[in-house]
C-alpha cells in the first residue's frame, strides 16, 4: 500500500540527498567528472579567512529562525484561540488568516516589496502621516532582515488550522470543571490548553524550523538578492549562488550538509527542552 510512496521518497528525496552528501566531498563544476577532495570544501566554507559569506549567511538564517518561528507559532496559537468560537464573521476571519498562505511565493514577495517601498509604499506613507520615522526597510541593512520576519509572520494559515483542530479536540468538560473549581482564564490556559496542545505546538515548531531555514529562498531572491551588503544573504540563497551561478557544486553541497546539521541541532535543542512536556506521570 505504501510502497509507491516509499519508492518516491527514496528516489526523489533520499537518493538526491545521498548524492548531495557525496558531492560535498568533491570538486565538481557540473561539466567535468567529480574529483574527491575529502574535507576541503568544509574547510573553505567554514574557515575561509577572507570571505565570510557562510558565517554571515548562517547568522542571518539563525536570526530569521529565532525571531520568525516563535512569532509564527504564537500568532497561530493566539488567532486559533480567538477564533475557536461561533459567531458572525468568524468564518470570514478564519479565511482571512489562511489566505496569505495560499498566495504564490513570487506574488507574495512582490506585494511586500510594494508595502515596504521606502518612498512610495503604504507603510512609510502611513508612518509619515503619523509623524513617525520612516526606515529605509529593504534599503537599510539594520531593517532589511526584519522585513522578512514580518512577512513570515503573516503566512501562518497551516499552523492556525492545525491548532484550531487541536483546540476543538479538547473536551469542553475540562474547562467547565476548571471553572467550577474556580480556575481563572490564565489557569485554564496554563493547566489545560497548553499541555493538551503541547504535541501540536511541538510539531509546528519543529516543522517551522525546517521550513524557515529553506523556504525563505524565493522572497530573498526576488526582494533583495542578499543586499544591502549581505545583510539579507540567507543560506538557501548562498547555496543557490555557489552551486548554480559559480558552478561550485562541492562547496554548495557542503553548505547544504551544514545547513542540515544546524537544523538538526536546533531541533535537538528544542526536543531536549520540551521533550517531556505534556506527559503525565502516574505514581
Amino acid at each position, binding site marked *: *500500500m505504501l*510502497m*509507491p510512496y516509499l*519508492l518516491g521518497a527514496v528516489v526523489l528525496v533520499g537518493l538526491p540527498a545521498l548524492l548531495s552528501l557525496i558531492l560535498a566531498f568533491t570538486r565538481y*563544476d*557540473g*561539466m*567535468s567528472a567529480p574529483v574527491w577532495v575529502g574535507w576541503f570544501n568544509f574547510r573553505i566554507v567554514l574557515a*575561509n579567512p*577572507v*570571505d565570510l559569506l557562510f558565517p554571515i549567511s548562517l547568522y542571518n538564517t539563525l536570526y530569521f529562525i529565532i525571531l520568525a518561528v516563535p512569532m509564527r507559532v504564537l500568532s497561530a496559537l493566539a488567532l486559533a484561540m480567538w477564533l475557536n468560537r461561533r459567531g458572525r464573521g468568524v468564518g470570514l476571519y478564519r479565511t482571512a488568516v489562511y489566505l496569505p498562505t495560499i498566495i504564490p511565493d513570487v506574488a507574495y514577495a512582490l506585494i511586500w516589496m510594494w508595502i515596504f*517601498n*521606502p*518612498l*512610495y*509604499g503604504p507603510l512609510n506613507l502611513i508612518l509619515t502621516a503619523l509623524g513617525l520615522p520612516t526606515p*529605509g526597510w*529593504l*534599503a*537599510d*541593512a539594520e531593517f532589511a532582515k526584519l522585513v522578512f520576519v514580518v512577512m513570515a509572520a503573516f503566512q501562518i494559515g497551516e499552523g492556525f488550522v492545525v491548532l484550531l483542530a487541536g483546540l476543538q479536540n479538547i473536551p469542553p468538560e475540562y474547562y467547565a470543571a476548571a471553572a467550577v473549581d474556580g480556575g481563572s482564564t490564565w489557569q485554564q490556559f496554563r493547566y489545560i490548553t497548553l499541555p493538551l496542545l503541547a504535541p501540536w505546538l511541538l510539531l509546528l515548531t519543529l516543522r517551522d524550523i525546517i521550513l524557515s531555514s529553506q523556504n525563505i529562498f524565493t522572497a530573498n531572491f526576488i526582494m533583495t*538578492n542578499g*543586499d*544591502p*551588503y*549581505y545583510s539579507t544573504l540567507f543560506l538557501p540563497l548562498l547555496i*543557490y549562488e555557489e552551486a*548554480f*551561478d*559559480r*558552478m561550485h*557544486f562541492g562547496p554548495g553541497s557542503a553548505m547544504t550538509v551544514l545547513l542540515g546539521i544546524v537544523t538538526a541541532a536546533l531541533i535537538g535543542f528544542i526536543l531536549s527542552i520540551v521533550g517531556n512536556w505534556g506527559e503525565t506521570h502516574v505514581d
Partner: protein
Amino acid sequence: MRNQLINFGLLMIVLFTSACGLGNTSDPVTFMVFGEPAELKAYQDLVDAFQKQNTDIAIELIHIPSQGDYRKRLAADLVGGEPADVVLINYRRFSGLALKNAFEPLGPYLEKSSELKYNDFYALSMRAFSINEQVVCIPQNSSSLVTYYNKDLFDAADLPYPIAGWAWDDFISTAKALTLDTDQDGRIDQYGAGVEPILIRVAPFIWQNGGKVSSERALTLADPLELEAVQWFVDWQVKHHIVPDAVEEKAESSESRFINGRTAIYFNSRRFVPTFREITTFDWDVAPLPVGRSEFTILHSDAYCLTSASQNKESAWTFIEFANSATGQKIVAQSGRTVPSLIQVAESESFLDPNAKPEHSSVFIDVIPFTLRLPQQANWADIEEICDEELQRAFYGNATVMEAMQSAVSRALPLFTENE
C-alpha cells in the same frame, strides 16, 4: 497491491522514456537569449527572417529576461547536458565556460565560411571571444558605455548638451545644476544623473585617470590612481548628491527615473535603446563619457556561441552565420539593440540613421578606438561580483572608498590564486 505496483511501474517507464527524448528526432535549433521585451522582438525578427530563407531549419527561441537568471539557466542546462544549441553570452562571462569546453570553437567554421571573414569584424570584440587566439564565439555587437541625456531637461535649464571631450568637472557642474527639488518639499524630484554603482560603470573612469582594474595577480583598485577615480565616482552620491541614495534607488531605479523624465543623464550601453525608443514624453540623445586625463570607455559585447553539447551543430552554425551576416546584423541593428560588430553594417545607414533614435548613434563608432575591455579570466564573474558589492558599500556611504577597495582586493585575491 499488485495492480498498484504495475501501474506505478508503467508510470516510471513512461516518465523515463520521455525524459530520454525517444521522441521526434528532427528537433529545432534552440536559440537562447536574454533581454527586455523590446530586445526580444529584435531576435524574433532575426529568427523570422532566417526561417524565411531556410525553410528546412526550424528555430526555437528561448527568452530569459534577466541576465542573472539567464546565466543560472545556462549553467543548469550545461550541467544537465542539454543546453540550447546557440546561446548569447557576454564576454565577461564567456571565459569561465569556454575554458570548460562548453562551446564549440567557431574559428574553423569561420575560416570555411564564404559569408563571414575575421577582418570584417571589430578586432576588439573578436579578441574578447577568442581563447589562445582561436575564435570560440562570434560577437554580435561592439557596444560601449555612453551618456544618455534628456534634451528637454537640458533645454529647460538652459544648459548645453554634453559633447565629445566634456570634462569630469563639466559633468559634475552640469549634473548639479540639473538636480532639483522642484516642489520645495525637501526631497529631490529630479536627479542630475543616474548610474549603477558597479565595476563596469567605474572602470572607464579608472582607465581615464591612468589606472587599471587589475594585474595578473590581483585587483589594483586600492592603488592611488584607482582610488582617486573611484572616489570621484563615489562622490557623485556621497558628496555632490547628484544621483539617488540607497533609499531613493531602492524605491525607484535610476533607469526608471530616466525613462519617466526625472533624471537628466543616465550611463548605460546600447542595450537599452529599444526600450528608450518607446519613450514619447521627451527627447533624448547620446554623448561620449566625460573625459578625465584621457578618453576611455568600456567594451560591452555579446556573442553567439555554439554549445559543444549541441546535436544540431551544422544547422546551428547556419543560423549563427546568418545572424552575423550583413543581413542578420542589419535586422537586429534596426531595432536599436546593437552596435553591429560587422564594420560595414556599423558604418551603414542601418545603424547610423539619424532619423532613428539616438540621433547621434555615431558616438558608439567614434569611441571604438578608445574602448578597453576587462580581463579574460575563468572566474572573472565572481571577482566582479565582489567588486560590485564593495563599490556599492562605498557609493551609499556605508564605508570609505579605501576600506571598500581594500576589502575588494583582499577578498578577490584567492580567486586570482585559483587561476595560477
